[in-house]
């Protein structure tokens, strides 16, 4: 049966067809919908779906299930794998019993990430096989087959889609047939599960042997194939780049042989050698790192093939950003020394104003940032930030995020800054989900090392940026079952924080008072700014309007808040339809010119 599916949904269907029993993960664009699609099917398909507090936890929980023989899947974005690196590197030595598949989504561009790291590289570093789908249909098949590959090799398998597979929709062939999994045998005690150095040295030899096993397995894999063509020049392409190559060749009217690679590590040597047999020159087209190219250079050298390789090392193929058909067409033309006659439409006019993403109208984070900026006015405070919608607090006019590195780094970077700049106020902003992810260890570290800083938890009761997923601070699980929520304020108290307050950011006066006290506190202070994400509670409050009689057009509401609902009109500011009635501007207006829409003047 054909279904119009997004790549992430397709992988969820693939996992079901592959007999997945346990799925864990942590949200992260572009990976999140793999998990949420599985969670939506969890009850019907009788699988366990749990959001974990972070990727390390997710991988370990899934590994435990696989130790007992279950088929398990873990989902995350590429930087999440850094958090899960510790269990991953040694899990490769220990191996697994039930199939274990890590879906790790890469984001060349990057569109929604802090870097462009290549998970294929990570897989080869961890000595684990990796599958690289070219489109949603192939992603489904790979998700299904990955469990069997994992069990055959006794190793976790990585499935690495990129944004242009995750968030691309196409008609996908889905099946109701589920691979019948063998009955789960349960955990069997033996010394093989305990990684002593003596075991590690033995298992390392085994792991190295498995590289050849995996290579052998991939020699006949349907994920790799040769599209025949004519001439003695060819192209090797991996992942979504394969489609750009095919289309570019169509546009150029060329018929040259293409080797499509879906198993970038370990690369099947016999297949590659067979392909190279009839060729003199080969172009390697892949996004991100030269993962295929490096292995090809090695193979060509080892097998003394006089073939000329072209790709990233002679700067024909970029190592940064995404590819597309246009770029690949130019690359191929360059490789084959063909003249292109394209002319592009040039906007030879002044550059347009940029339209960066912004905090939504009524976003409680805007109020929180503004309050702390005001409380710290004239103090030269440093505002450290974290990963979430609130990284946008960096933008004008708020300018309330001075650093952002990775998940959980707001508190820790702040602690380091404070050691060197003891006279400056340090305010660390992080979200509720991020607090649970990796914020807590930093908070404990700050208390133990007697740091002096204010930690602001922007508690909007959700994981907003990635599409509103649940977390341990909420009274429901990933599949919507009720659960006792963890209280961030009580956790902070238990960590030994001497000043803990919870306040509503929509209440400006109360928030300002708490912010001032927190900044004056000699030690670690935690302020939980609690107010539900405005995208979840639309339509709750009356919008505001400006009473033009009272408005002096001082510009404060526009210039200080940067709220997209307030624009400059011909006679002073105007509040538009997107106003949610958060009331921040009314509380700040020096002349009381902002009132409830339809309210008495």
């Amino acid at each position, binding site marked *: 049966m054909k279904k*119009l599916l*997004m790549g992430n949904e397709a992988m969820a269907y693939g996992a079901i067809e592959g007999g997945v029993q346990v799925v864990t993960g942590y949200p992260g*664009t*572009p990976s999140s919908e793999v998990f949420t699609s599985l969670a939506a099917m969890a009850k019907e398909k009788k699988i366990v779906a749990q959001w974990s507090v972070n990727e390390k936890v997710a991988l370990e929980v899934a590994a435990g299930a696989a130790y007992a023989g279950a088929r398990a899947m873990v989902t995350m974005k590429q930087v999440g794998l850094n958090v899960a690196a510790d269990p991953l590197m040694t899990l490769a030595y220990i191996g697994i019993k039930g199939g274990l598949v890590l879906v790790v989504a890469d984001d060349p561009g990057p*569109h*929604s990430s802090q870097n462009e790291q290549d998970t294929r590289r990570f897989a080869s570093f961890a000595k684990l096989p990796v599958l690289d789908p070219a*489109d949603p249909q192939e992603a489904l098949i790979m998700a299904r087959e990955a469990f069997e590959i994992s069990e055959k090799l006794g190793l976790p398998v990585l499935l690495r889609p990129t*944004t*242009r597979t995750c*968030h*691309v*929709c*196409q*008609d996908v062939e889905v099946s109701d047939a589920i691979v019948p999994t063998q009955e789960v045998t349960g955990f069997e005690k033996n010394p093989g599960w305990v990684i002593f150095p003596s075991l590690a040295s033995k298992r390392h030899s085994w792991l190295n042997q498995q590289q050849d096993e995996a290579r052998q397995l991939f020699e006949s894999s349907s994920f790799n194939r040769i599209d025949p063509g004519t001439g003695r020049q060819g192209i090797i392409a991996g992942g*979504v780049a394969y*489609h*750009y190559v*095919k*289309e570019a060749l*169509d546009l150029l009217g060329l018929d040259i042989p293409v080797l499509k690679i879906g198993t970038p590590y370990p690369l099947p040597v016999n297949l590659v050698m067979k392909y190279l047999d009839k060729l003199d020159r080969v172009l390697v087209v892949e996004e991100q790192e030269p993962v295929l190219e490096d292995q090809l250079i090695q193979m060509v050298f080892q097998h003394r093939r006089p073939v000329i390789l072209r790709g990233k090392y002679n700067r024909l193929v970029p190592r940064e950003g995404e590819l*597309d*058909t*246009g770029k690949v*067409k130019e690359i191929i033309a360059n490789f084959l020394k063909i003249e292109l006659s*394209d002319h*592009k*439409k*040039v*906007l030879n*006019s*002044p550059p*347009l*104003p*940029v*339209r*960066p*993403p*912004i*905090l*939504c109208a009524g976003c409680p984070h805007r109020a929180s940032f503004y309050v702390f900026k005001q409380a710290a006015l004239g103090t030269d405070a440093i505002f450290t930030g974290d990963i979430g*919608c609130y990284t*946008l607090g960096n*933008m*004008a*006019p708020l300018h309330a995020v001075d650093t952002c590195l990775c998940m959980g780094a707001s508190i820790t970077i702040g602690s380091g800054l404070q050691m060197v700049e003891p006279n400056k106020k340090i305010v660390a902003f992080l979200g509720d989900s991020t607090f649970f992810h990796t914020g807590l260890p930093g908070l404990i570290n700050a208390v133990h090392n007697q740091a002096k800083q204010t930690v602001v938890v922007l508690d909007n009761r959700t994981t907003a*940026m*990635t*599409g509103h997923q649940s977390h341990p601070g909420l009274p429901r699980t990933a599949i919507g079952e009720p659960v006792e929520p963890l209280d961030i304020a009580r956790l902070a108290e238990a960590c030994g924080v001497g000043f803990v307050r919870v306040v509503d950011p929509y209440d400006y006066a109360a928030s300002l008072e708490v912010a001032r006290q927190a900044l004056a506190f000699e030690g670690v202070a935690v302020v939980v700014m609690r107010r539900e994400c405005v995208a979840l509670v639309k339509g709750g409050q009356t919008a505001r309007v400006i009473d033009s009689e009272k408005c002096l057009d001082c510009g404060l509401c*526009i*210039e200080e808040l*940067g709220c*997209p609902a*307030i*624009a*400059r009109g011909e006679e002073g500011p105007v509040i538009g*339809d*997107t106003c949610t009635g958060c009331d921040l501007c009314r509380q700040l207006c020096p002349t009381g010119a902002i009132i409830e829409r339809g309210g008495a003047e």
Partner: protein
Amino acid sequence: MRKSLNILLVGVGGQGTILATRVLAKAAQEAGYDIKVSEIKGMAQRGGSVVTQVRLGEKVYSPLIAEGSADVILAFEKMEALRWLPYLKQDGHIIINDQAIAPVPVLTGAAVYPEDCLERVKQLACHTMVVDALNIAVDCGNPKAANVVLMGMLAKRLPITKETWLKALKARVPERFIDVNLKAFEQGFNL
């Protein structure tokens, strides 16, 4: 062999480009096309410049539309129309919603909104249609249906039957909004 078509939907996060894309994808699927739709989610959705790419044909490889190869651009905001214009084919059509949404640099006075953006588009594109979709949607009963007015205009210009469009619209729009959306679609279709 079906002619392949590249359609770019551009606008501002929150304008309903994703829903419009889903309706288009559904209609194209019903009509038997091979399709690829590419969306960008995450940070850009927070009021940023957003683009979705829809490709239809006998066999579609790339999920992305190359510069200079869009048959139609459906622009939900006029400055975005200008921004994405380099993607339009030499003889392509551009349908523009006559609405200006000021980005933050304009709101705060750091940049100026290009008031002449429609004129600039018209100078560079051969087939430009400008419509006040917001006003039409208001007349239909809900300003949020502006995206469906634009869908209707697009529908008239694509080789997919009206019945197929209506079926797709009903499949993708929540039940309680269907009447206003059908009205909005009809208005757009008849423009």
